[in-house]
């Protein structure tokens, strides 16, 4: 079937142009904010946001370093979206993944690949809990996973506090008790390999994490597009009733999907904290990384391949934002950057508009003899609460004839 590619590529074109348009709008709003906060340095700041990421290999290394966990969190959220679930618990799963990896690396003195496995398993278990609650008791996964974000944060704090071997002052003479030991001191074999990239890019940040993330994205794409498992998962996401009718075990798929989603976020936590450049600090607030996975997934319309690019983009903007200092204070930078990121995630809304415009034109041309009883075709393909919330559902009026 060669013809069908036409339809698919039109859809793809709409998706991509929607994403690009969203990014442009996000950047414009960012520019406006720069002018409001510090007009003298606005244009210069804007230039910094746009180009810092590629100015030096060192900055590029930072972009890739940050993009890896972001990508994995984005994949986590996107995977759940594909199954019609909203995993807002990515941050908790990310945190427990970090904890699992560090426990394996520091307390158990295991190498990095086993530590990553710990991260995956911890994330999967935590992710599966809201899935089980949803499947068995029909409890909304958003509520359970939000609660588990906080439960996880405090539980991890409690655990680390009571594991002296994990803390920094156990390994080196210091009084620092609020963070975990530096991996390079405690267990160098747990640090992710750098594959000579550190020399090449002149940065200590770079490691193989980004390749792991890209590899996972490709595997996820294959699973969703090519396998029976992916077919079943997407079926549940698009239409739970029809998948039950077809004999697909929806409950099992909800648990599996949330488990896999959690595993991806957990892996993200492992990748970030095993890079050897940061130490896990006892937290008072939830980590932003898991939440940033949501705009990454939305900007990519939940397409795993798209997530690769959207994570790189958002990481790039973040690195650019750091260069705004000292003309802008940290808090203002956060506002500017998050405005850009969150407006970029309006890709879905754009998609609705663009396909509407697209459709209107094709109606005028073709005078539409088709599909009289079918619903308007511009309904979003995106399942899940978020998609429905953002889109102007009221615009999609249906004819009420049965």
């Amino acid at each position, binding site marked *: 079937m060669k013809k069908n590619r*036409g339809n698919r590529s039109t859809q793809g074109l709409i998706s991509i142009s929607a994403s690009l348009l969203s990014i442009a709008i996000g950047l414009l709003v960012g520019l406006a904010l720069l002018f409001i906060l510090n007009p003298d340095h606005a244009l210069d700041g804007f230039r910094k946001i746009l180009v810092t990421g590629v100015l030096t290999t060192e900055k590029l290394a930072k972009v890739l370093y940050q993009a890896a966990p972001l990508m994995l969190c984005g994949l986590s959220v996107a995977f759940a979206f594909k199954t019609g679930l909203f995993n807002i618990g990515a941050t908790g799963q990310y945190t427990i993944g970090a904890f699992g990896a560090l426990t394996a690396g520091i307390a158990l003195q295991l190498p990095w690949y086993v530590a990553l496995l710990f991260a995956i398993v911890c994330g999967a278990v935590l992710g599966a809990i809201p899935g089980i609650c949803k499947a068995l008791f029909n409890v909304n996964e958003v509520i359970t996973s939000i609660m588990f974000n906080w439960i996880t944060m405090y539980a991890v704090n409690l655990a680390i506090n009571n594991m002296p071997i994990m803390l920094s002052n156990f390994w080196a003479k210091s009084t620092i008790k609020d963070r975990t030991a530096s991996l390079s001191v405690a267990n160098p074999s747990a640090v992710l390999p750098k594959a000579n990239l550190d020399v090449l890019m002149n940065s200590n940040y770079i490691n193989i994490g980004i390749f792991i993330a890209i590899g996972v994205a490709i595997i996820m794409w294959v699973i969703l597009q090519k396998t029976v498992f992916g077919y079943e998962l997407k079926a549940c996401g*698009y239409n739970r009733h*029809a998948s039950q009718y077809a004999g697909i*075990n929806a409950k099992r798929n909800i648990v599996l999907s949330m488990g896999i989603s959690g595993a991806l976020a957990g892996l993200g936590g492992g990748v970030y904290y095993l890079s050897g450049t940061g130490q896990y600090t006892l937290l008072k607030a939830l980590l932003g990384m898991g939440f940033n996975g949501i705009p990454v997934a939305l900007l990519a319309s939940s397409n795993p391949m798209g997530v690769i690019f959207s994570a790189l983009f958002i990481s790039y903007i973040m690195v650019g934002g750091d260069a705004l200092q000292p003309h802008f204070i940290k808090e203002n930078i956060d506002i500017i950057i998050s405005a850009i990121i969150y407006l970029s995630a309006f890709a879905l809304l754009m998609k609705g508009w663009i396909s509407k415009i697209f459709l*209107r034109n094709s*109606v005028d041309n073709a005078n539409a003899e088709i599909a009289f*009883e079918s*619903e308007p075709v511009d309904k979003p393909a995106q399942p899940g609460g978020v998609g429905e919330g953002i889109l102007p559902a009221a615009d999609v009026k249906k004819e009420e*004839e049965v």
Partner: protein
Amino acid sequence: MSEYVIEMLNITKRFPGIIANDDITLQLKQGEIHALLGENGAGKSTLMSVLFGLYQPEAGVIKKDGEVVQINDPNDANHLHIGMVHQHFKLVEIFSVLDNIILGVEQTKNCLLQKKDARRKVMELSAKYNLQVDPDALIEDIGVGMQQRVEIIKMLFRDNDILIFDEPTAVLTPQEIDELMQIMRNFAKEGKSILFITHKLNEIMAVADRVTVLRKGKCVGTLDVADATIDTLAEMMVGRKVSFEVQKSVARAKQAMLTVQNLIVAGKNTGKHKINNVNFIVHSGEIIGIAGIDGNGQTELVHALTGLMPVTKGHIYLGERDITSATVRERNDLHLSHIPEDRHKHGLILDYSLAENLVLKNYYYPKYQRNGFLRFDEIYRHADELIAKYDIRSGQGGATRTRSMSGGNQQKAIVARELDLDPDVMIAVQPTRGLDVGAIEYIHKQIIAARDAGCAVLLISLELDEVMSLSDRILVIHEGEIVADVDAKYATAQELGLYMSGASRQHMTTECEVEVQ
């Protein structure tokens, strides 16, 4: 003073992808019953929604008594004394009948609700038009017939004199339909004007003065019913000559394929028995029709038979095998096919391509997957085969997104998929709901062909005509019980109507038990 109370002139209303109303003109005289005829999707409901202020037309004007009016919302319509009984009633389930009638036009005194006058007015209207209602009953406790009467009184309570009835007979028994027709005639005699939306030709012949026919969003014409015949109207509606006769040979029933024994199914939330001690057998090579008014347990029966809902008590056998607690997948694999009632909710995954939907029941067969990977070449070949065999029309063949297909072709896709499973038993629920006459003919033929090939068919439909023309035997369901078992050859609509409404019932033997043992 104009001859017409309401004129809708050159109305055009578009939706993304379709023109629902294309330059339609409808003129309503005072005191007439004016039918609006058209197939599903012809634009009848859209036109009425425009009149009722729910949609704004892109072009055209509405005149009341010769003067142009602007109707922005249902309140405006109400001020112009236009009232509507919607196809799906707009009633608050947990309110009483009286509260529903006064909702929106409540009288208050010192911020307190005054119901005394309202109650008197309701009782007067009820007596005057012979519309029996119990003002204190809750909506959830009364039947659809009374709910409809509540909707009618609601219009009268607001002193509406232009009354719109949107497919009012779909939920009624033949007897209730006769009553409704009489009530409509009384209204017209009093000078009220009635717009009667329907796709049933005999109802138009029985009650309407004039009829306007719509087809695919366009106005085909307006004519006096006295000058029309059922055949001309059908031709105007469909655009070609139509045969209403279903051709079929005599059924040759063989062994029992689907046996239902003392089946009890509890409702989803209430635990109330929605199916109560039901027994029947469907043999291979016959079509058993189940007639009944909507909401009498049909959905629960189907869901229990297909495994979507647990059985409380009793047994279901497929051939010799007890499938009472089998999963949906196990039943599929035993060649139980199911054409579901709601094609969008259960039958299709609208965001999947046609090809993907055509393997929805058997994508896991070795033919379509290898080591967990889907074999898309086979899946598309299979789609091409079914598209050709069942004449499914779609823009891009197997790759068409199902959402963009017309309802008729979506339904054909489901029928194709279910028949392709080579079923021993087929449960067909409302298989032609919302389809045009051509597609109906086609699907009926396919179902009869399946029967002749030895399939046991259980047909559940709210359209009495469909049950009567397709079935070999008819069971009537009322409040979760089978109240009659009649030979389709000798059944009349009147007789079935009495059973459907619960006014009469046969003494049912429990022959099934004997036969299975």
